[in-house]
């Protein structure tokens, strides 16, 4: 039985990189539909008051607790397809090699192409194929965290399915949601998909090396993002040329240190409480 969620699916805990996580999708609708209650035929109202996303949020809380205890900084990367998430990730991992332990969870509807690209950098990666699903949920991510055996004080990058709609609603237990918008898209995307840009903590404006060749107005993009999210932190960079990557990498390391000291502090407090 799975220790994260108690689900009854058989689940191997070996670190097979090709491990199929699709079972995480097969829980719904297989439950107690046939439950029989004898002698109850009268119609009645039952008060429920339950959050539709409550289950997901419970799994997300469990993931968050795990990360906090282990000093892991988890980031949920969201964007449209083609904004450059995977290239950004590969180049970020290469820059962090031998500096910080990293692990990657890759979400796509089909193929393990992205996880394969990540593994070529020497970083452990698990691919989740969501099949029909258009977003990762916290349950799938919990299993992936177990499979990856994420090291203490790691950076955990979760590359969500390329989609600016649903991933906004599904908390995965990450510390920060990082939205990536490339300059080959429209600068008004923060207004077109406001929920995502409102939910994000960080905005990476990617492919800025292409600015001379496209009509993208970067000042407008910044203003639109701030309009839906006054507190959003913005980095301009190009994963391909490396322009602006230093600031992003410095931010990652600073935030990782915060997670590390947070975990140490929590451990210290727990020890004091035990004494």
């Amino acid at each position, binding site marked *: 039985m799975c220790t994260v969620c108690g689900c009854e699916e058989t689940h191997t805990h070996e670190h097979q990189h090709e491990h199929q996580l699709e079972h995480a999708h097969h*829980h*719904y*609708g297989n*439950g*107690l*539909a*046939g*439950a*029989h*209650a004898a002698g*109850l*035929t*009268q*119609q*009645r*109202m*039952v*008060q*429920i*008051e*339950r*959050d*539709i*996303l*409550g*289950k*997901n949020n419970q799994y997300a809380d469990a993931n968050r607790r795990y990360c906090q205890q282990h000093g892991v900084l988890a980031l949920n990367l969201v964007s449209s397809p083609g904004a450059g998430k995977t290239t950004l990730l590969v180049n970020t991992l290469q820059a962090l090699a031998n500096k910080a332990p990293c692990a990657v969870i890759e979400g796509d509807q089909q193929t393990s192409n992205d996880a394969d690209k990540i593994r070529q950098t020497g970083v452990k990666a698990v691919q989740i194929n969501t099949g*029909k*699903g*258009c*977003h990762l*949920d916290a349950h799938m991510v919990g299993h992936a965290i177990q499979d990856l055996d994420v090291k203490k004080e790691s950076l955990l990058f979760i590359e969500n399915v390329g*989609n600016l*709609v*649903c991933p*906004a*609603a599904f908390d995965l237990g990450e510390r920060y949601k990082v939205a990536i918008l490339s300059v080959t898209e429209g600068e008004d995307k923060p207004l*077109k*998909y*406001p*929920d995502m840009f*409102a939910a994000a903590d960080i905005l990476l404006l990617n492919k800025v090396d292409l600015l001379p060749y496209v009509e993208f107005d970067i000042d407008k993009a910044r203003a639109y993002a701030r*309009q*839906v999210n*006054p507190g959003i932190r913005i980095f301009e960079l190009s994963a391909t040329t490396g322009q602006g990557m230093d600031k992003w990498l410095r931010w990652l390391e600073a935030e990782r240190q915060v997670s590390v000291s947070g975990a140490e502090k929590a451990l210290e407090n727990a020890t004091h409480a035990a004494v």
Partner: protein
Amino acid sequence: MVVSDMHEMALCESILQIIEEEASKKAFSKVTGIYLDIGQFSCVEPAALKFCFEVVSKTTLAELASININTIPGKGWCRNCLRDIPLSHRFSPCPVCNNRNVIIRQGEEMLIKQLEVA
């Protein structure tokens, strides 16, 4: 707003899962009506939700159950005026001072309130 049908599909699967859990706890075997509180800003398209639920609930205890949606209007708190304000859109400015420094207080709900069961 652009809404993906698949998003409603995932929500319907969650609704059904909750119903099945409640069925064993509260001893019912059929659901004829589902009453939801859905916030104005929650990205749920009622028509898509109803359509998806019909698909997801086939051959379950909630097949043919009616979906009844109570829309919860948006409400915010203006950090400038320091008071509650009505919000027509998620990112509307404060109608009094036109400031955008507004916190959403209501309108993001996605709750199953009650079930009509047999």
